[in-house]
């Protein structure tokens, strides 16, 4: 341990955060304002997620941190080390073993279970932000369920591109009420939000907002009746390492001659499959 309080933040701050989280859980999809603290990392690196994680952690927790699905990228490694140091909690790369998972831009492929908490890092919590610049007006629109504008954007996509072109941060409707930005996860992950047994918390540090999806919440991706939502990914590709057909793939450029490969973005899922295949072969 260090001289820091458990999980870096002081108890009064964690209490403030927990109050915001409880309110967010009570009103699924509603953005609860909170007084975001300065964290020892720049905005955009997950200050919101880190604060939510700090407020949720107890000494018995096992923490997993992923960035774009990977456990070994800079953002994931630094946040994992941060909490290992200031909270002394056990860390893991295995989705199934973790009790708290902080994530940036992905939901793990391995299905989550009851009792797990998934914490999203959110850059822009307001789904209406680029449609309506005034914060006072977007809040009124949420309050009055005045959401026609969101579909105007989808309409424009179809008129222009022949399909809904939005591939990430695809807007969803929570329990038939609030429209929510699911953070920049690929739309491939949107179905995993729906009716998830895990508690899903969203923290936006710079924008000072927390919102939540309690377990088993109905989450629908917005669409048109004749242009239904599709959870798309790289078409016709399988993972070059583990051969998975059902996981979200990253395209990796391998040389200067146009060489490329598609691999699972979820490194834990890929490694687990490779290990299982090795065991089967042995």
């Amino acid at each position, binding site marked *: 341990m260090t001289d820091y309080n458990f999980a870096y933040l002081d108890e009064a701050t964690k209490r403030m955060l927990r109050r915001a989280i409880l309110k967010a859980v009570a009103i699924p999809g509603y953005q609860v304002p909170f007084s975001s603290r300065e964290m020892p990392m720049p905005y955009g690196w997950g200050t919101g997620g880190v604060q939510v994680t700090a407020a949720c952690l107890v000494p018995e927790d096992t923490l997993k941190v992923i960035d774009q699905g990977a456990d070994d990228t800079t953002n994931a490694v630094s946040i994992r080390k941060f909490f290992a140091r200031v909270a002394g909690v056990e860390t893991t790369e295995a989705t199934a073993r973790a009790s708290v998972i902080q994530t940036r831009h992905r939901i793990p492929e391995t299905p989550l279970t009851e009792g797990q908490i998934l914490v999203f890092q959110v850059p822009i919590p307001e789904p209406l932000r680029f449609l309506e610049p005034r914060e006072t007006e977007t809040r009124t629109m949420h309050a009055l369920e005045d959401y026609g504008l969101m579909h105007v954007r989808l309409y424009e996509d179809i008129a222009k591109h022949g399909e809904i072109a939005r591939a990430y941060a695809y807007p969803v409707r929570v329990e038939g009420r609030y429209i929510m930005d699911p953070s920049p996860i690929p739309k491939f992950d949107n179905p995993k939000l729906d009716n998830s047994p895990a508690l899903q918390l969203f923290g936006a540090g710079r924008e000072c907002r927390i919102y939540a999806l309690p377990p088993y919440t109905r989450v629908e991706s917005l669409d048109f009746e*004749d242009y239904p939502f599709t959870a798309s990914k790289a078409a016709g590709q399988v993972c070059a390492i583990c051969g998975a057909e059902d996981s979200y793939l990253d395209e990796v450029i391998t040389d200067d001659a146009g060489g490329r490969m598609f691999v699972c973005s979820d490194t834990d899922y890929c490694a687990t499959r490779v290990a299982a295949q090795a065991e089967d072969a042995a």
Partner: protein
Amino acid sequence: MTPLLQVESLSKFYGNHLGCGEVNFTLWPGEVMGIVGESGSGKSTLLNCLAGHMAPDTGRVIFDTRTNGPRDTVTMTESERRWLARTDWAFVHQNPRDGLRMNVSAGGNVGDRLMAVGARHYGDIRRQAQDWLGRVEIDQARIDDRPRAFSGGMQQRLQIARNLVTGPRLVFMDEPTGGLDVSVQARLLDLLRGLVRRLGLSAVVVTHDLAVVRLLADRVMVMKDGRVVEQGLTDQVLDDPQHAYTQLLVSSVLQV
């Protein structure tokens, strides 16, 4: 028959300054009411109070809603007012830029209100948008163009299509022909008159142009310094003005 809109002693003050005071009138279904007066006479203030853009200080604005009968729009909740604003009411701004989404295509602009009231079928929305572009004489091939690419007159017609697509019963118009040249004005008036008569709309038209009132309105209200100085049937008021100010107004029209 129930009046569509009943305004009772409506007043709006800007501090100590009177915006509009003690306005009373009744609008019947299918009737077009013109409000004329010079700049600063309180026409736009009155219209904004009627359309719920501004809260009046005193008075009642009773609108005959489709489902709940006559209701006072001043005291109803903001969400009810907004619902009215996208279903039963329409508001045509003087400057089409205020009434259109300039970075959304023409089709998206017309479909906006449909989607706001829950239309979720792309094909249907597009068909209706196309139909309405046709009705306001905009080439249907331009459905995916942005309003920026349209002329002033086309923008104004697009604004009208966007407002009428949900079949409103009451249209508020604030200087609908302002800023257009005379030949375009004439076409727009022709179009408006046709639409209003064919759809049986009621309308409140604010203008300083007596010709617009003559063509569109059944009845007219003349305002000066925030007060209504004269009201009556359009032809009666314009041909036989009683109040000194109305006489001045009518005699100031240039004869060509």
